[in-house]
């Protein structure tokens, strides 16, 4: 290449090369970090939560597409999608099972059953609806999920419930035009979703914590949830620049009491199939945390194996907490493996479990297939008033009566501070409702609303229409003054371990209620076939009888005519011989002709 161009050009080329080299040198610095963490939390109910979090931080920003050129730890498959569709923040969760707030407290990452996706787009996007539909298609290919069903019929623009989790100006974060929310409560989550999720990890699933993620074990559990969370975060303490943070989370809840006959004992090998034998060499932090909150409250003697490297006591809100910490690298260099195990000296005692401060229940009311209702019950066990935002998205075929929305607290009607209501449109938009109201201390607040079931068109029914139709979870957002049962990491930090240094006094809580299954008036799909059969039968009967009536001649038989016994016997024998029957017919015809006049008179009588 150099030989073909002149010396002057060559020097200029070299200069360019130097500039490019310099540019690359800047970007070749380790401007990204990766960390793998696992939080283990045994519950009073016997189950154990394992929450994996893989965090990649990169000095790049989707607002500057030029920074997404030289990938090292950040997955390119996802990075390309974020840049192309100008995504500011993306939160995707794929969940199987329902999180039991009453028994398990609050999860580190809250997610409804099925799939939930909410995205904040950059303000530079011109046509957000189009970008959103392209984005969900791209993500559906990336995660093997039917996200392409998140069309305009199931997408909403929540006004208050979803704020950006990362860096954002106040002006931007109050403008819900830039955000889209959608959920598919029916979506099934299985190995085919875990496979692409694992492929985004820099160490894949060959080394490090991800080696524990064995699909056959993960989906044989009470609850399992995959998450992808992308947001801009502060690069430095001064926060003049932003980095991009990718959090890949996986929560799974097992019940070890089933396999250990009533004991809460478990070890990594029994739950995940293998102990941990390696550390991801690209990870700067590889740690396992165990929340000892429940272990200390129970009266059983609990032994942890191996001894934790560190025990951290800290206070979060007013809550005193203890984390046992294992450093995976240190453990493996010492023991070649980390087969974390817990041993209890007695069987589990099932007792009353202290529920978390705020939790909810939601169900369908009414009977029949014409009308129905949705009722949510929100419990507040705190001594203080709480302001809550309640968000409900209802498919268009459940026509909501706005006038029927009532909030009551022990029989007293609660007036909402604010209401945001977007009525649905048939086959175009779903019903969207956001209510802001007060939860009184130590009280139960009930929200109820009525709807009417619509008729769908023949082709709109899914193949399994008789199974019913799913309704999204309702979302309740509030701010707790205390961190009781609260495990989410603080907003300003990226790592699970940062919870131990959290000194905030307010804890934002978002919780998802149950999804609902509603049956709609479903036609009998074999009806057209039945109609054809029935119609044909009727036609055949009518046509046949008319045909008979119009083409046959009626014969009057003279009952007085005596037939001798011999003749009767003869007739019996004759009947089976066709030739003779024909002969008989011709004989009778001749008889007919004789009696024609008689018949005519008889017919006249019938018709008259």
């Amino acid at each position: 290449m150099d030989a073909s161009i002149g010396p002057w050009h060559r020097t200029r080329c070299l200069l360019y090369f130097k500039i490019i080299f310099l540019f690359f040198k800047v970007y070749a610095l380790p401007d990204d970090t990766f960390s793998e963490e696992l939080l283990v939390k045994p519950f009073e109910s016997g189950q154990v939560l394992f929450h994996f979090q893989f965090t990649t931080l990169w000095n790049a920003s989707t607002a500057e597409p030029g920074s997404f050129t030289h990938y090292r730890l950040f997955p390119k498959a996802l990075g390309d999608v974020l840049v192309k569709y100008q995504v500011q923040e993306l939160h995707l969760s794929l969940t199987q099972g329902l999180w039991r707030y009453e028994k398990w407290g609050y999860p580190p990452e809250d997610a409804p059953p099925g799939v939930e996706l909410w995205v904040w787009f950059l303000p530079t996007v011109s046509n957000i609806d189009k970008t959103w539909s392209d984005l969900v298609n791209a993500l559906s290919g990336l995660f093997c999920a039917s996200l392409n069903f998140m069309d305009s019929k199931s997408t909403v623009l929540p006004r208050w419930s979803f704020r950006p989790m990362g860096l954002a100006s106040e002006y931007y974060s109050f403008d819900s035009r830039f955000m889209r929310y959608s959920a598919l409560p029916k979506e099934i989550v299985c190995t085919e979703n875990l496979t692409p999720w694992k492929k985004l990890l820099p160490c894949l699933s060959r080394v490090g914590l991800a080696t524990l993620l064995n699909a056959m074990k993960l989906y044989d559990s009470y609850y399992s949830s995959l998450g992808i969370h992308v947001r801009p975060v502060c690069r430095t303490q001064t926060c003049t620049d932003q980095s991009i943070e990718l959090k890949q989370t996986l929560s799974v809840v097992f019940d070890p009491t089933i396999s250990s006959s009533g004991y809460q004992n478990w070890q990594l090998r029994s739950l995940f199939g293998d102990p941990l034998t390696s550390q991801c060499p690209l990870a700067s932090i590889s740690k396992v945390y165990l929340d000892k909150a429940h272990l200390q409250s129970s009266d059983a003697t609990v032994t942890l194996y191996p001894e934790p490297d560190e025990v951290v006591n800290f206070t979060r809100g007013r809550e005193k907490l203890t984390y046992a910490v294992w450093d995976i690298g240190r453990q493996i260099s010492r023991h070649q493996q980390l087969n974390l195990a817990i041993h209890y000296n007695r069987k589990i005692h099932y007792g009353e479990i202290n529920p978390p401060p705020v939790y909810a229940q939601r169900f369908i009311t009414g009977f029949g297939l014409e009308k129905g209702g949705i009722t949510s019950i929100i419990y507040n066990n705190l001594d203080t008033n709480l302001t809550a935002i309640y968000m409900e998205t209802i498919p268009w075929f459940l026509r909501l009566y706005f006038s029927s929305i009532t909030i009551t607290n022990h029989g007293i009607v609660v007036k909402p501070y604010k209401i945001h209501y977007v009525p649905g449109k048939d086959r175009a938009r779903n019903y969207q409702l956001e209510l802001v109201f007060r939860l009184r201390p130590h009280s139960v607040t009930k929200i109820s609303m009525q709807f009417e079931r619509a008729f769908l068109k023949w082709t709109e029914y899914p193949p399994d229409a008789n199974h019913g139709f799913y309704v999204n979870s309702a979302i309740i957002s509030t701010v707790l003054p205390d961190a009781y049962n609260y495990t989410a990491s603080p907003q300003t930090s990226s790592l699970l371990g940062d919870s131990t240094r959290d000194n905030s006094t307010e804890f934002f809580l978002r919780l998802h209620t149950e999804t609902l299954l509603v049956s709609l008036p479903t036609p009998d799909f074999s009806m057209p076939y039945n109609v054809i059969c029935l119609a044909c039968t009727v036609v055949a009967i009518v046509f046949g009888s008319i045909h008979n009536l119009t083409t046959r001649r009626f014969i009057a038989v003279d009952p007085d005519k005596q037939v001798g016994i011999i003749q009767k016997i003869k007739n019996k024998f004759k009947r089976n011989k066709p030739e003779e029957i024909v002969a008989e017919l011709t004989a009778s015809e001749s008889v007919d002709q004789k009696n024609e006049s008689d018949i005519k008179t008889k017919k006249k009588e019938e018709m008259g």
Partner: protein
Amino acid sequence: MIFAILLSLSTSVLTVNTANPPVEEFFASNHTNNWAVLVDASRFWFNYRHVANVLSIYRSVKRLGIPDSHIILMVADDMACNPRNPRPATVFNNANQHINVYGDDVEVDYRGYEVTVENFIRVLTGRLSPSTPRSKRLLSDERSNILVYMTGHGGDGFLKFQDSEEISSVELADAFQQMWQKRRYHEIFFMIDTCQAESMFQKFYSPNILAVASSKVGEDSLSHHVDPAIGVYVIDRYTYYALEFLENVQPGSKKTMDQFFKVCPRIQCQSTVSVRTDLFQRDPKKTIITDFFGSVRNVELLTETLNLQDSTAELSCSKDKCPEDKPPKSGVQPLSYAKQFPMPN
């Protein structure tokens, strides 16, 4: 009588075993890439066997070298994580649980309600919306060999999708013709396991299609056996024996399509496996099975030597030691996190 059948069975098995693949040179296939479109058209738990069928073929083509990016897998219902499955995240083709055909790295491209006749025809003919991701497209060209496998409930001239709609043999034949006109394939191997399966390829009129069906018109294709632990039939006869054959095929194997057509004789299948070769230009006896089930990898050798940097090596300066590449901006408003709760508490 029974003895005679047994004798004929044993002799037929013997002939299959002793017939070594001919050593003569095979006709050049002339294809440069391989694709597979694998369709399970049945929903509902009692059709577990159809999902096992399609995953059996998926497992085989993946093992023989077709990458996930070149496989379009359509599965109409979720069996692996179905609440009724006592062994979650697995689909076995056998009551003895020999082979978990679902595997640990499956990628399903179309699933659930997405498996429709419309989507299937669109995938074949390439008439998809511009935003469809690459993993859901059949990006084949005139040098592609495509394996099309279908399974479900069918009848004379149709295959049901999700128990709510059906594709007719004429529609399928027209789709293949459209593919041929658009130069979307070089050769197609069409394989179908359903009742009266032969009727689905009788209407084909496009060149270079080789087809095999599990049963003749008027015959039912039957399932192989039931797993009492799951409570449903786990696989269909034809696919069961086809998988048994394919499990013994290695990527370098010289087994031919003709040998594959002899899989599952009437004694095993209880239906007559039917073959159509008149549209196909080559001799099935000289067509190796990996032309459709395997993958061609064209390797070009370079004479130059490329030096690649070790990307995992420690860089000369770490984040702490290196001077900040940019001086901290002065006078710039620091960024802040958005407030999560926009209401007064």
